[in-house]
């Protein structure tokens, strides 16, 4: 199987402050991330706020220029090519954002919103717009209305129709359902999964909701402070999480079933996310980790297969969670 997207050692650093004699801090929002997604596959990228998952998505899209590393789309390095060439590759990779209120121009009609990518690239056909609206389950007479007349779920459908218009192969979904109500969330997830099957799309699904990621993803990567700490197939990561962060993340998700809630083991992490501009030495997670040892402060754990082939984790003590306390 060929890789649709291959990201190698990607860094995106921001300079904070500085000037007037103060030293600028370097915020390593994305700090050496490598992964690949096969054609037709969904990679779920999970992490809490501030872990760099959205920055990673934007760096891949070319909305923010990465500090170093490479992004290959279908074998072609996007960062090494000329601007004009990159512009030609753009239609192959599209995006759906989290906020369906901010992602649609309030002064455009639905038709114009979906037609925009076609017009930019000079391939506008009215039939294509109709086809796209139909594809995401919107009625043709809705085309003349403004986004303000739609609810969050319908707006997200419009955004999906726009992303699909150019016939992309890869779609980066940046928290596409987290602003939606539960009953609407299920509609959009089903739509995304159906479209993937019909069109053979490849998804990078960025989210903080673990249940949603588990439902839609084939493979999953977990991020913490700019780095991937665990990556594997869905069943590996959710069934046998190897990294203590993944384990605590999974145990923190409330289960919608009151049965046995008293006996359910829960790892409650100590403290808050450390300042990303000044991360702890060694393993960045060690300050909150229940397994931390002296070694964790000295040696940065590599992301390598540790517990099973194809199941990588960045922890010196990776393994099935054994309750410590």
């Amino acid at each position, binding site marked *: 199987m060929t890789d649709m997207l291959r990201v190698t050692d990607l860094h995106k650093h921001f300079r904070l402050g500085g000037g007037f004699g103060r030293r600028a801090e370097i915020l390593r929002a994305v700090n050496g991330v490598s992964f690949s997604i096969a054609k037709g596959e969904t990679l779920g990228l999970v992490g809490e706020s501030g872990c760099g998952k959205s920055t990673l998505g934007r760096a891949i899209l070319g909305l923010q220029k990465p500090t170093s590393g490479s992004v290959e789309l279908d074998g072609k390095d996007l960062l090494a090519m000329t601007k004009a060439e990159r512009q030609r590759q753009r239609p192959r990779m599209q995006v759906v954002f989290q906020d369906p209120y901010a992602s649609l121009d309030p002064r455009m009609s639905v038709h114009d919103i979906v037609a925009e990518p076609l017009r930019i690239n000079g391939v506008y056909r009215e039939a294509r717009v109709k086809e796209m609206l139909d594809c995401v389950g919107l009625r043709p007479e809705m085309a003349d209305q403004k986004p303000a007349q739609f609810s969050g779920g319908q707006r997200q459908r419009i955004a999906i129709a726009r992303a699909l218009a150019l016939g992309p192969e890869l779609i980066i979904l940046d928290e596409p359902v987290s602003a939606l109500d539960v009953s609407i969330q*299920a*509609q959009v997830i089903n739509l995304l999964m159906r479209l993937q099957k019909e069109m053979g799309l490849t998804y990078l699904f960025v989210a903080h909701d673990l249940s949603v990621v588990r439902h839609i993803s084939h493979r999953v990567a977990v991020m913490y402070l700019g780095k991937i700490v665990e990556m594997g197939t869905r069943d590996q990561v959710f069934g046998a999480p190897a990294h203590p962060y993944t384990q605590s993340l999974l145990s923190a998700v409330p289960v*919608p079933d009151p049965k046995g809630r008293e006996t359910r083991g829960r790892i409650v992490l100590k403290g808050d996310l450390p300042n990303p501009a000044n991360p702890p030495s060694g393993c960045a997670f060690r300050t909150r980790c229940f397994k931390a040892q002296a070694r964790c402060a000295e040696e940065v754990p590599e992301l390598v297969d540790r517990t099973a082939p194809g199941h990588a984790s960045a922890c010196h003590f990776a393994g099935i969670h054994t309750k410590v306390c």
Partner: protein
Amino acid sequence: MMADVILSVRDLTVEFQTPDGPKRAVDNISFDVHEHEVFGVVGESGSGKSVTMLAVMGLLPQGQARIAGGEVKFRGKSLLDLDTEGLRAIRGKHLSMIFQDPMTSLNPVIKIGSQIAEAIGLHQKGLSRSAIRDRAVELLGSVGVPNPGRRFDQYPHEFSGGMRQRAMIAMAIANDPSILIADEPTTALDVTIQAQVMEVLASVRERTGAAMILITHDLGLVAETADRVAVMYGGRVAELAGVDEIFAEPRHPYTVGLLASLPRLDASSSEQLYSIPGQPPGLRGRPSGCVFNPRCGLKRGRERCETEVPALREVAPAHAAACHFSEEVGDWVREVAAAKREAAL
């Protein structure tokens, strides 16, 4: 044995002023909260769950919304008859509220400690300044804020989201209230921080014995913390029962749909999620009859759903549902599940 009722809401109706005249955001809802229990209120946006609690607290936006009818009683005493002064004496002392966004509910230019001290001073007159300070530091420590003495003198922006919510909880429990109303207390937080905050809330309740009303859209949170649950939809209570009954044997088609549309961590993931068709109704254009009827799978074209508002009635012991055909729900769920299995084969 049921504990005493501490808060009782009867036929509460709240109207909002809209350009098309007054519209009911909350329509005839009734429920009781017992001493020491956790009462979960679940619903999607626009279901009226937050408005209900604002009405109970007397915090509805003046001029935009008003209580059009009903009764709210705290330990047998009507809250709606109270004047501003009387309400103020109860608010914060007996009933206190924790809001979703700790950034906007804390004053950014006042030190955290002073805000907690203010909450104490309001209801415990005659306490010396140093006694108030000691109490505030103690409260901060009790909600798990490290270094409470130093943190006392910091401003909200120096606190992380989780710490701010802890400070809010400290303020809310400053006067040992008998009911804590928590409106989406962890929605703005990450899951690992949410787990911390929920643990703090649990320990606080254990210590003070306060009852809690937990308003949330997260069914998982309710399943893990609530004793009894009200499911709200379109300004009405759709179902009201103990937490085990609601999740094991839902008796309203909306609850059934809501549970089925959740992606789960604990169940094997099937290919397709059940999804309730259509959109939840806004304030305008609420359907006649049962508010849920245009989206309901159990309606099956029956006219009664469109013409008659279903009353919230007891369908099993301590289990109420507002559906004309609640008795059919069990069979319907099995039917749908069987059809799904067949389709999968």
